[in-house]
């Protein structure tokens, strides 16, 4: 910064102090000073103050209003004005974002540094806070301008309108059903198991699939409410494994209170029937309250 520009700057600042430029426009009337003795309708002022997008925006506004250059901010003057706005916002009980106060502190610090004699710089990393402020103001100003440019861009729905022309055949096509691959299903199951793991500390112990399948089959057999002979549920042609699986399925169903097992006297025929609650299947009531995680996961 040259001495020349400093002098210039000083002049501008002085002019600004002598003839303050308008700061506020309320209902078409220009106010050149912050209200000390004049009355501004609170609503109007609130709208005016709320339109700032933060401390940087307010600072830029104060600088621009006085035709000052960001690079030559008269800190003392600007700080004074900034504080007046902050006080005003406090008086208005506007919700004052903490960012405004941070900025106030920053300005106060810069001001005090400029008023005090500067000690010789010892720490090279010591950043001039004024430079930092200027950098931030410039940076913010760029994007503020860019936002204004965005507003001017052609926008779909405002400047550019979409066309939509009917094509008569479009409704005729039926959407094909998605094809499902087995590996997708497996992936899904492994995902769900992975997630279930996060819900429970229990180890997941899978039982043989065929038992589960057999459970469904057995249930279908007995769901009309009739007794079924225990032995009739077995198919000996399936061999030892099949019989064992059926037996396990029945045991599991009994354990889950889905089947009742009845024997009228010792050594008599054993009969199986659906548990009393097992109404035949046509409608499913959709509310289920019970069910803990272990029951579902830790089936065995």
């Amino acid at each position, binding site marked *: 910064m040259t001495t020349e520009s400093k002098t210039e700057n000083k002049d501008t600042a002085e002019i600004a102090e002598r003839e303050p430029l308008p700061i506020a426009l309320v209902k078409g009337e220009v106010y050149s000073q912050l209200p000390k003795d004049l009355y501004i309708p609170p609503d109007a002022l609130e709208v005016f103050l709320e339109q700032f997008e933060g401390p940087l925006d307010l600072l830029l506004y104060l600088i621009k209003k006085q035709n000052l250059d960001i690079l030559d901010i008269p800190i003392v003057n600007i700080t004074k004005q900034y504080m007046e706005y902050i006080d005003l916002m406090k008086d208005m009980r506007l919700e004052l974002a903490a960012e405004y106060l941070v900025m106030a502190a920053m300005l106060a610090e810069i001001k005090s540094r400029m008023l005090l004699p500067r000690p010789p710089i010892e720490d090279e990393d010591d950043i001039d806070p004024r430079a930092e402020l200027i950098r931030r103001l410039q940076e913010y100003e760029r994007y503020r301008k860019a936002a204004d440019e965005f507003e001017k861009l052609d926008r779909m729905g405002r400047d550019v*309108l979409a066309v*939509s*022309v*009917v*094509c*008569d*055949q*479009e409704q*005729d*096509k039926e*959407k094909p*059903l*998605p*094809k*499902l691959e*087995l*590996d*997708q*299903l*497996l*992936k*899904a*199951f*492994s995902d*769900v*198991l*992975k*997630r*279930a793991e996060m*819900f429970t500390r229990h180890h997941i112990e*899978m039982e*043989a*699939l*065929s038992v*589960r*399948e057999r*459970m*469904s089959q057995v*249930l*279908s057999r007995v*769901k009309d409410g009739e007794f079924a002979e225990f032995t009739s549920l077995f198919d000996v042609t399936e061999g030892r494994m099949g019989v064992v699986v059926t037996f396990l399925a029945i045991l599991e169903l009994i354990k889950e*209170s*889905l089947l009742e097992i009845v024997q009228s006297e010792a050594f008599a025929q054993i009969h199986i029937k*659906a*548990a009393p*609650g*097992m*109404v035949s*299947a*046509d409608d*499913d*009531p*959709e*509310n*289920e*309250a*019970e*069910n803990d995680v272990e*029951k*579902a996961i830790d089936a065995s």
Partner: protein
Amino acid sequence: MNILQIKNITEGALLAAGKPLTIDQILSLFEEQERPERDVIRSALKELEEEMSGRGIELKQVASGYRLQVRQSVAPWVSRLWEEKPARYSRAFLETLALIAYRQPITRGEIEAVRGVSVSSSIIRTMLEREWIKVVGHRDVPGKPALYGTSKAFLDSFNLKSLSELPALSEIRDLSEIGKELEAGCRRADPIILVC
């Protein structure tokens, strides 16, 4: 306002509206002092119709006004725009189906408990409609929730003879391992593998 501008506004409006427009509706787009006569709109429409002959769209008068539509002669090609690739099943759908397949008979509540989120009715309905699952009974607890199991149609669609042909968990492990490797090179073994 000259006739070309009026014609262009008419064309733009018909294209943007997405529905038939009456002459009155077209007239209402103009401010009062610039509003043309009805006959001007009529002749603009006529001109548009002539210009469009032999092109990809045509002007058609239907009950509720004038409409621009894709010409029948090109419609078979254009309609392929919507000939979507079949949609993919959602993760919720696949996980629910997988749970029913491997854990049947199972209630909706049990599925929800494992998945940790609620199962939407529409998913269950879709599976029932497609006859991939069926209600095999009801659990004897308050509310009598339906127990779901898979059907023959489910097995058919995967070309399986019985549920025992579904890959066992050990294969799932391999699969997820392969998937992992494919996805991100060799990451760490996932916790499920240790448990199974």
